[in-house]
């Protein structure tokens, strides 16, 4: 076993230790021993010892495998090849122990036995195998019902929140939407042919538990557009302290309905006179705060759908973007054909116009929102901006003049 005096210091402490866990496996797997040895070296030298990835994969796929090679293969022969396999996770990251054990059995046979549960995009990540083992490992997994996820300039494995499986706030079936879209875009997920990556995420409500607004090129967030349902007796129970704020998630013993709910409402659309809670629903911006505070008294309305937002990505390269609203409300139901069709239109436009490694959000900024909206057939809506432009530099197109001549107020879509 390699000596790891620096890493050994991470074995103590109350939070689960990855070093302790890896050491257990290192006794059985020489490559894990080498991994600890190389990691110790990085801790000493403060530098990575992984080389820039190479192109490896399984037959017929261009994505899902990340080539990884050590720059110290003579010292750590077990890491000469140590590739990553991304396995597309099930919606909502639900498993049975039988399913996890099947994956473990296969990974013990063909790989290092190290997993990430899960990767940042959502995949079940298998860390560390050789080029020769990629194809047999893939097929062993496939025969148990698993497939490889996305990487590179491809559709990435879509992900979603826990949704209707275990949450009362799911405004649509996030798990099925995620599954349906994943299946629909299998070809694009496995064969990179886009300008860059494309991520779909599905959050059931504006609490956005999968950070769709920050991390998905196309974000789907559940929303309602009618009235919040109020159980006045439960509101009183919160006011009286019988029910705990946020279902008991806080340090506070009692909810002050006026100070903690009504006064913190961002639109000021609520009132409480000590007996009745009133909500001016026409002015609610469905932020979820009041519902979060009183989950047993307030429920989202019944007219439910999704808001579609576009364009988020991390700072590389023009600076981080968050997704912005392009469709304020869309009714959806399985098999989610309207989401699939819109996604296809967007990707077609992006594939046609995007530069190499240009995210769709960056392309929309480069060519303009109008160009994008017209190309995918969406009308301009005030919900898509916080405020309109302040500058006077706007364009007029022939379509605008034609609409004007035809007596229409303004031009929207073709």
């Amino acid at each position: 076993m390699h000596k790891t005096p620096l890493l050994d210091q991470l074995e103590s402490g109350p939070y689960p230790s990855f070093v302790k866990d890896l050491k257990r496996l290192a006794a059985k797997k020489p490559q894990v021993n080498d991994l600890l040895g190389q990691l110790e070296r990085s801790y000493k030298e403060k530098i990575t010892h992984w080389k820039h990835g190479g192109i490896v994969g399984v037959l017929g796929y261009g994505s899902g495998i990340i080539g990884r090679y050590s720059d110290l293969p003579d010292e750590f022969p077990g890491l000469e090849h140590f590739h990553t396999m991304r396995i597309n996770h099930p919606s909502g990251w639900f498993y049975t122990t039988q399913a996890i054990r099947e994956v473990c059995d296969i990974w013990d046979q063909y790989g290092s036995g190290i997993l990430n549960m899960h990767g940042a995009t959502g995949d079940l990540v298998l860390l560390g195998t050789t080029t020769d083992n990629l194809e047999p490992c893939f097929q062993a997994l496939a025969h148990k019902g698993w497939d490889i996820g996305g990487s590179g300039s491809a559709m990435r494995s879509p992900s979603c929140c826990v949704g209707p499986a275990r949450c009362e706030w799911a405004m649509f079936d996030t798990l099925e939407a995620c599954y349906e879209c994943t299946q629909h875009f299998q070809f694009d997920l496995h064969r990179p042919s886009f300008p860059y990556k494309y991520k779909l995420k599905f959050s059931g409500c504006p609490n956005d538990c999968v950070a769709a607004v920050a991390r998905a090129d196309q974000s789907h967030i559940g929303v309602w557009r009618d009235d919040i349902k109020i159980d006045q007796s439960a509101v009183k129970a919160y006011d009286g302290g019988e029910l705990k704020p946020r279902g008991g998630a806080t340090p506070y013993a009692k909810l002050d309905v006026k100070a903690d709910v009504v006064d913190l409402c961002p639109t000021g659309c609520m009132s409480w006179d000590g007996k009745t809670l009133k909500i001016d629903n026409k002015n609610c911006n469905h932020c979820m705060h009041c519902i979060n505070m009183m989950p047993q008294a307030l429920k989202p309305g019944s007219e439910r759908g999704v808001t579609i937002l576009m364009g988020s990505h991390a700072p590389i390269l023009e600076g981080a973007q968050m997704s912005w609203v392009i469709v304020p409300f869309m009714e959806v139901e399985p098999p989610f054909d309207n989401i699939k069709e819109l996604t296809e239109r967007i990707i077609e436009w992006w594939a046609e116009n995007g530069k190499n490694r240009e995210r769709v959000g960056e392309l929309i900024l480069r060519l303009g929102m109008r160009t994008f909206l017209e190309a995918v057939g969406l009308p301009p809506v005030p919900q898509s901006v916080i405020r309109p432009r302040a500058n006077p530099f706007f364009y007029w197109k022939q379509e605008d003049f034609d609409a004007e001549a035809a007596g229409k107020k303004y031009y929207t879509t073709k």
Partner: protein
Amino acid sequence: MAERITDIGPPHYGKFLSPVIKENYGKWVSHEIIEPGILKHVAESGAEIYSVRVASPRILTTLQARDICEVADKYCGGYLRFTSRHNFELLVSDKAKLEPLKAELAKRGMPKGGTGHSITNIVHTQGWIHCHTPAIDASGVVKSVMDDLFEYFGSHRLPAQVRISLACCLNMCGAVHCSDIAILGVHRTPPKVNHDRLRHLCEIPTTISACPTGAIRPHPDKSLKSVTVNEERCMYCGNCYTMCPAMPLFDPKKGGVALLVGGKVSNAKSPPMFSRLAVPWIPNNPPRWPEVVQTIRKILIKYAEGANKYERVAEWIERIGWEKFFEVCDIPFTYQHIDDYKWAYDTYRTSMHFKF
């Protein structure tokens, strides 16, 4: 040989749902968090499910995964799930099993928590354990910070939830840019061009166009078939290295940690916000990163003391003003804090609304 299977996609989640979840799918009416780490959901039918949330370092061996399975078999019929912050949840339908489960988790060193007004698991990236571009490690920093803040994992004592994330370089595959506290590995050295390798490994036009500041130019000596870097323009994003392996920018001494704070994803009260630079550089100091740990603790304590009820870090800072944040947390304000990248102007103050 068995038939080759491709493009089947992931298994349908329906195969993995417990009977209670299947029967009450879409029919949940409310929830409580009965103690830190244990959620109780109630359905229209009156059915209940208890989710016991447990810490995970995200990187798991098959041995640990099998241990988790053993617990799940014993207490919840083999049904479990993982969360978007890489914890796992044991889905218990029999309330009588909660106490013995808690005892077993404690015995196995599997802490429950991460619910409500807590610090839950730190979403993070690979770091030195498996990545070719990191400035810092990921798992080791996370372990060190979580050990230090452990009292906040299994309790609900903060004014609101605090989401900490870590990305080990500017590529941010952890997408930490909307976190209450973001730990970011940063390089501070321009790439060193290896002309011999570049000629064989890299496409010169894509390498040049990878640079967002136009710092990369064709090398004036055409026979080299390489590039030069205008070092004054480089802000060490590493995008050229992504495109061209002959341009590494690692430096054990200059690389380090930046902290960004005040981001959020949820729409509750205030809209989603980006995290913003709090500390531009902290030394990269394995194995326990004491300076990072102490700085995060300092920010967290000042937040916990200063925030109103239910206020997220971002909402607290926006209320008191960023100039007060730097004062309260005793963090020096530097040239690095003033944006000079592409969309800088919207961060400049154009009013008299500031504090001394």
